[in-house]
């Protein structure tokens, strides 16, 4: 009996370890957003205090945020990704949301009001979100 339980435990542990090792990177679609914010307010938060904004929107581990706004522009990135740039009211900076083309709604275009869920990585010139999906 002990031998059987031991074998089951070993197999279970090995299976867990194998699955954990091979676990893929989660996209924003699998996450509950920790904050919902307009593109204008997101940029304003970074302009006011970048470290505090990182703490809130980037967090310690990967987390999704939801951003609402109007599409300022869309631009291809390589062959399989697209940047959706949200208007911020500040011509010097935007909120850049990187989509896999497979996740990009086909009817999105400049001027459309959209709701994006993505993983915030911080501020360079723009606030950058990756692994984005359209939020329901």
């Amino acid at each position, binding site marked *: 009996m002990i031998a059987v339980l031991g074998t089951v435990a070993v197999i279970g542990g090995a299976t867990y370890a194998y699955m*954990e*090792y*091979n*676990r*893929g*990177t*989660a996209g924003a679609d699998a996450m509950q957003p920790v904050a919902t914010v307009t593109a204008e307010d997101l940029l304003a938060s970074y302009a006011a205090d970048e470290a505090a904004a*990182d703490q809130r929107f*980037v967090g*310690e*581990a*990967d987390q999704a945020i939801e951003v609402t706004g109007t599409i*300022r*522009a*869309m*631009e*291809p*990135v*390589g062959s399989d*990704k*697209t*940047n959706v*740039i949200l208007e911020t009211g500040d*011509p*010097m*900076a*935007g909120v*850049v949301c*990187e989509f896999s*083309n497979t996740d*990009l709604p*086909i*009817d*999105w*275009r*400049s001027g459309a009001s959209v709701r994006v869920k993505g*993983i915030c*990585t*911080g*501020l*360079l*010139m*723009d606030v*950058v979100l*990756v*692994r984005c999906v359209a939020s329901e």
Partner: protein
Amino acid sequence: MSAAHWNNNETTDNMNTFKIAILAAFLLPVAVSAQDRFGTRNGHIAFFSETPMENIEGNNHKVSSVWDATSGALQFAVLIKAFEFEKALMQEHFNENYMESNTFPKAEFKGKMTGVTAEQLKKPGTYDVLVEGDLTIHGVTKPVKTKGTLTVEANGTIKASSDFMVRPEDHGIKIPGMVRKNIAEQIAVRVRMDYTRM
């Protein structure tokens, strides 16, 4: 991708030009001729760690960079958390254990790219260049000197590429002994930039 997505190409191009101009003012605040300044905010930096135990690759397609062809001044900035990995564990260990990206959220390069003149950039061609400057990773700045290639396309786009090696220990990145064999002592870095004239 539907063709409908790109019916605003002119608007997008204008926006790109504008954004890069702003980026240049941010990253490269020196008085130079705007005609000889090039930039991108969608540059690609990848790194590779190859060992018998496992191979690890990280990719970042959100690199901001500005190059002034007259002075040679070159700058990069990259968000560490924008590196993406095939496996979640690799990404978690990269951010939490090694790069400590909550403490050091960005990496930067400031230096020069020389070997090609502004005049040469007016016609298509491929040139060998030298990149030299200071690379800051994990809060530690080290000098870097490497060769690269710069190609001027017929449409005026400039493709710059360079490959070099980085030792994690040089930037104060500690690799625990338990996983030392899983991570290469020298990490191969690949830089690919598609610059547009500003």
